[in-house]
């Protein structure tokens, strides 16, 4: 793959091209069976993502998703599309949320869905309702000493473990790499996560969803943030609170 650098500028109308490229690189990386090629494709993906920045203004997002800003604001208000408060105090949309939605839209459009964004958000809600099932994700009797945060992390990682694929594992590896480079994780936990993320997927799933003191400590520095959408995460947090209260 070879693209001129000027197509990656986040200015003007090149944003759409940059996101198209990210999606194509992710798809190529997932289809590649050569680890070196996968690694290079993901490095290129990260480079382009870096030129966009971590968040986008709602006006840019509405253009990318092909909806009015009024419609987008409604979904942002309801929390159906994630938004974050930037350090400058603006409400913006995480870049990775946009990538996720664009990928979802591409699949739905290929299947001929009418109003694909509304359909994508409906699918998200249904997935959250079907998968956030604490009976399945947590021990029936909450062991003494488990704090709410530990239970949330346990349920979260058990859900991640169920969905774990190369894409999710690669995201976690990239995040860990960034944390190590910026000194955001203690070396002891960095090397432990490096060990875990070098394992086959089934072993990674087992390690991150174990209910042991060691695993509980490990999850406090987990690089698996952002795997669940906001709807699912909120459902999970509220469900844990209900379980502890009941």
């Amino acid at each position, binding site marked *: 793959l070879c693209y001129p650098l000027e197509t990656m500028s986040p200015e003007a109308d090149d944003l759409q091209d940059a996101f198209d490229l990210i999606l194509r690189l992710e798809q190529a990386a997932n289809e590649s069976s050569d680890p070196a090629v996968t690694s290079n494709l993901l490095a290129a993906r990260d480079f382009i993502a870096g030129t966009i920045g971590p968040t986008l203004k709602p006006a840019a997002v509405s253009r990318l998703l092909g909806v009015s800003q009024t419609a987008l604001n409604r979904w942002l208000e309801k929390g159906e599309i994630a938004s974050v*408060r930037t350090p400058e105090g603006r409400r913006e949309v*995480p870049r990775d949320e946009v990538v996720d939605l664009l990928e979802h839209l591409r699949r739905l459009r290929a299947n001929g869905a009418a109003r694909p964004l509304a359909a994508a958000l409906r699918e998200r809600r249904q997935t959250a309702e079907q998968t956030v099932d604490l009976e399945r994700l947590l021990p029936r009797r909450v062991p003494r000493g488990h704090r709410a945060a530990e239970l949330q992390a346990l349920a979260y990682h058990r859900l991640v473990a169920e969905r774990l694929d190369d894409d999710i594992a690669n995201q976690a590896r990239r*995040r860990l790499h960034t944390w190590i480079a910026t000194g955001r994780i203690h070396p002891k936990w960095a090397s432990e996560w490096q060990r875990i993320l070098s394992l086959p997927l089934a072993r990674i799933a087992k390690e991150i969803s174990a209910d042991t003191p060691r695993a509980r400590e490990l999850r406090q520095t987990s690089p698996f*943030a952002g795997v669940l959408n906001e709807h699912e995460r909120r459902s999970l947090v509220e469900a844990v609170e209900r379980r502890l209260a009941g």
Partner: protein
Amino acid sequence: MKPEEFEHVVRAAAEVVKDEIVVIGSQAVHGELRSPPDELLVSREVDVYPRSNPERAVDIDGAIGDGSQFDATFGYYAHGVGPETPRQPLQGGRGV
């Protein structure tokens, strides 16, 4: 966590619950020192609760907690706790 990141988390938490935020735990030292010790820079978490409605700490967890899009986007997060959580003897609770 750098001072500007700490301030970002606290402002975002205040926005979620529309309340003053109390910070407890080791990160509360940011309220006192502009150049905190290096050990604090490794932490990604700020323990907080809303001053007027501490029970809304769960809303903070839900919006900007561990594993949230906020965490995924910026690399740090708020942990909603209860006022009964033990405080650090040196810094104590720090209202922001």
